[in-house]
């Protein structure tokens, strides 16, 4: 099978029934999609398949044959975060980080489909994602900010001062 991940083409050897998550993590070594529940219930494994948010742990690899897969690495780079990634940093929407890649990709799909800053729409879009740190309010705030197109200079925020996400280091 052939898949493209973040613009890089791969020819995979896994069985067509293998969950896409296992192809990404075990065969290709792309570990940002997380294996949380492995049964479609937590959203930590969510990736974009041709722009649509999908649970990679329950999607047979055959269903991604020929598709463009986007993982969180495809959203932005550490020195050039995407709008939604910036918003997550600014709003402290990542705590332990385990759910974050799935949350970001679900949020990106929501925004790609014209999602607004209406909290109920965001909650519907992210409703299948579990944050074990229970940081839901900050996540919804971040997606709402991204929906409004807000951009942040992360070097001026508290988060920016104490992380290396923007290359600024700890002050």
């Amino acid at each position: 099978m052939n898949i493209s991940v973040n613009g890089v083409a791969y020819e995979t050897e896994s069985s067509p029934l293998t969950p896409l998550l296992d192809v990404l993590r075990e065969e290709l070594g792309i570990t940002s999609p997380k294996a949380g529940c492995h049964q479609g219930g937590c959203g930590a494994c969510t990736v974009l398949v041709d722009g649509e948010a999908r649970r990679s742990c329950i999607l047979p690899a055959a269903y991604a044959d020929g598709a463009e897969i986007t993982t969180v690495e495809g959203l932005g780079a550490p020195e050039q975060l995407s709008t939604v990634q910036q918003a997550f940093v600014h709003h402290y929407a990542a705590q332990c980080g385990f759910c974050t890649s799935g949350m970001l990709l679900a949020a990106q799909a929501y925004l790609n489909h014209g999602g607004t800053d209406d909290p109920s729409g965001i909650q519907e879009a992210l409703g299948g994602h579990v944050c074990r740190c229970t940081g839901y309010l900050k996540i919804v705030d971040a997606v709402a900010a991204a929906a409004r197109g807000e951009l942040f200079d992360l070097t001026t925020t508290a988060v920016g001062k104490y992380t290396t996400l923007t290359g600024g280091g700890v002050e």
Partner: protein
Amino acid sequence: MATAALAVTDEIEVLLPGSEAEAIEAFGDGKDVVVVGGGTIVVPEMTYGRLQPRRALLLKDAGMAGMAEDGSRTTIGSATTVDALVGLPAPLGPCAANIADGEIRGVATVGGNVCAGAGREAPRGDLQGALLALAASVRSAGAGGVTEEPLEEFLPKRRERLVLGISFDRPARGAFAALDRPHTHDYTALAVSGARAGDGAVRLAATGGGSWGVRLPSAEASADEPERAGAAALADVDPRDDALASAWYRKKVLPVLVRRVLTELEEVA
């Protein structure tokens, strides 16, 4: 969790038919074949080793998705995604919208949902109730060839057949009521669907009232009296205890959902 990934092996023969005819031929009499619609139920079962088929029939390229209208009759291909049903009138649209979340609905198929059985810890197959209320018929393949029969007759043997399509007449009015889910990853503990045909006849069905979707004929007989119908519905179900709710609780709530559905059907009758 890493060991879970090992259950899906190369030893399973994967069949990828390119048409409905090829799918029917590959399914044969259904022995030792598991049908993979969207995979949302089957893949986790295989991942955790609870399902170990010799052959897997993947429908993704079989051209079995889509909806067609012919007069008042709607036909839905078995590989149509649940998400495609969300905008339809009640009871089917709201029932579909109450299944999982958009990411799951965009992959899960109508045929897979109709063929789902009770899970280990929850009822599954939410669409069964709505389609029973709509007096749907199922076209399927398997031993004896291609047949079409009412959903009620199909459900007991759903694991032995390959669903090809589902048809029903649009009702004059439909309604759907369900217990709220605390999170989208929960299955629905109990739901009631209702449909009023053009001649005024009312059909009611429940999901979560037994091992699979069940009609509520005793409630239908008292459809003009929602209070009485709600109580009567208890004679039609055999709910069980599971992780979502006890049988006792389901029996307490069923009359309420039946009353809500009948009241909604009455409002514009």
